[in-house]
C-alpha cells in the first residue's frame, strides 16, 4: 500500500482494507443476525481506520461515537425480532395438532 | 433572451434571481402559475363533499370527512398547490426536481390520511414509485450537471447540447414522481377516496407538471 517517507509501510490503511473486505464477505455469508452484526462491527472498524488514514479525525470520532448507537439499535431490534419469530413458531406449531 | 425559450413558452417577461437559482416568467409559466394559485384558493375555501356510497341490499350511506382529517388534507393540498405554482416558475433543473419530490410527498399525504385499506394500499405503492423515481430524477439532473457544467435552464437553452439520454432519464423520473398515464391506474384508486377538492389538487399538480416538463425538455 502506501509507503511513507521514512520507508516504513503504513499498516493502518492495509489493515482497514483487509477488515472491510473480510467484513463484507462475512456479513453477506453469515445468516444468523448476531453473526452478521458482529461482522458489521468489524466492517465499521475498517471504515473508521480508513477515515483516520485520510486524516479526518473529527469524522472518525463522530463515527466511533455513532457506531455503538446504531449497533444497539440493531441488537435490540434483532432481539425483539427473534422473540417474535419464536413466539409465532410456537403458536403455529400447535395448529397442525388442532387440525388433526 | 435566448430564442429557444421565447419560441416555446411565449413572450419572456423577466426573472426573479435568488442567487444561482433564477425564477423566470414567460407567458406560459405566468398562466400556469395563476391557474395553480387560483385552484389552491378555491380548494382552500371548499368544504369536502359528502360522498354518496351506494350499498347493495341496503340504504345508501353518506361518507363524511372528519374535521381533523380535513385539516391535514387541506394543508397538504395547499402546500401541493403552492409548490405546483412555483414549480412553473423555477429555472433550475435540480430545484425543479426538488419541487417534484415535494409534490410527490404531498400527494401521498393527501391520501394517506384516509383510513381505508384500498386507499392506503394505493398510497403505499404510489409512495414506492415516488421513492424509486428519485434515482432517475436526481441522477438525471446530476448527469446533466456533469455533462454541461450547469443546471440553469436559461444557460442550457443558450447552447445546443446533446442530452438526449439524460433527458429521457429525467423524464422517466418525472413520470414516476407525478405518476402520469401508465400509473393512473394506481392513482384512480386514490381518486375514488372521499375529499374531492384535495384529490383534485393531485390531478392538477401532476398534469401541470407534465406540461412544464415538456417545456423544459424541449428547451434544454
Amino acid at each position, binding site marked *: *500500500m*502506501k509507503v511513507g517517507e521514512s520507508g516504513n509501510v503504513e499498516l493502518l*490503511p492495509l489493515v482497514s*482494507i483487509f477488515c*472491510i*473486505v473480510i467484513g*463484507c*464477505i462475512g*456479513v*453477506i*455469508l453469515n*445468516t444468523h*443476525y448476531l453473526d*452478521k*452484526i458482529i461482522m*458489521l462491527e468489524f*466492517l*465499521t472498524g475498517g*471504515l473508521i481506520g*480508513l*477515515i483516520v*488514514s*485520510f486524516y*479526518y479525525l473529527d*469524522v472518525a470520532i*463522530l*463515527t466511533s461515537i*455513532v457506531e455503538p*448507537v*446504531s449497533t444497539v*439499535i*440493531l441488537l435490540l*431490534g*434483532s432481539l*425483539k*425480532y427473534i422473540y*417474535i*419469530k419464536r*413466539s*409465532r413458531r410456537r*403458536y403455529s406449531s400447535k395448529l397442525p395438532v388442532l387440525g388433526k | 433572451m435566448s430564442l429557444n425559450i421565447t419560441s416555446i413558452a411565449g413572450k419572456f417577461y423577466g426573472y426573479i434571481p435568488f442567487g444561482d437559482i433564477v425564477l423566470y416568467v414567460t407567458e406560459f409559466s405566468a398562466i400556469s402559475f395563476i391557474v395553480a394559485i387560483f385552484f389552491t384558493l378555491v380548494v382552500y375555501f371548499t368544504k369536502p363533499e359528502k360522498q354518496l356510497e351506494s350499498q347493495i341490499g341496503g340504504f345508501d350511506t353518506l361518507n363524511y370527512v372528519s374535521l381533523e382529517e380535513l385539516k391535514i388534507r387541506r394543508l397538504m393540498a395547499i402546500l401541493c398547490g403552492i409548490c405546483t405554482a412555483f414549480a412553473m416558475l423555477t429555472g433550475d433543473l435540480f430545484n425543479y426536481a426538488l419541487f417534484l419530490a415535494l409534490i410527490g410527498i404531498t400527494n401521498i399525504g393527501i391520501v394517506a390520511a384516509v383510513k381505508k385499506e384500498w386507499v392506503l394500499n394505493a398510497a403505499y405503492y404510489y409512495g414506492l414509485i415516488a421513492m424509486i423515481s428519485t434515482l432517475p430524477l436526481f441522477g438525471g439532473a446530476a448527469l446533466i450537471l456533469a455533462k454541461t457544467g450547469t443546471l440553469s435552464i436559461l444557460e442550457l437553452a443558450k447552447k445546443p447540447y446533446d442530452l438526449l439520454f439524460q433527458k429521457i432519464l429525467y423524464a422517466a423520473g418525472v413520470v414516476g414522481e407525478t405518476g402520469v398515464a401508465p400509473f393512473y391506474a394506481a392513482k384512480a384508486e386514490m381518486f375514488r377516496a372521499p375529499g374531492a377538492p384535495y384529490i383534485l389538487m393531485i390531478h392538477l399538480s401532476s398534469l401541470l407538471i407534465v406540461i412544464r416538463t415538456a417545456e423544459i425538455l424541449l428547451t434544454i
Partner: protein
Amino acid sequence: MDIVISTLYLGYILLIFGTLGVILGPERRDPFVRLLNIEIPALGVMLIFLAYNHTLALMTYIAINSLIVLVFIRTIIRKEELEA
C-alpha cells in the same frame, strides 16, 4: 493519491457485492437479514464519499443511516407482529 483510488475501488466492490448480497444473498427471504445486508451498500456509499472527500456528506450519512435503520427495524417488527 494511491489511497484515494484504493478506497474508491473498495467502495465499488462494497456497493456491487453488497447489492448482489441483498438481492441474492443467503436466507434473503428474511427481511431482517436483508436489512443487515443493506448496510454493506451503505458503507460502500460512505467509502465513495470518503474517496471524493465529501466529508460533510459522509458525516451526515453516518448519522442518518442509523436513523434509517431504526425506521426499517420498526417497520419490519411491526409488520411481523401484525402478521403473527
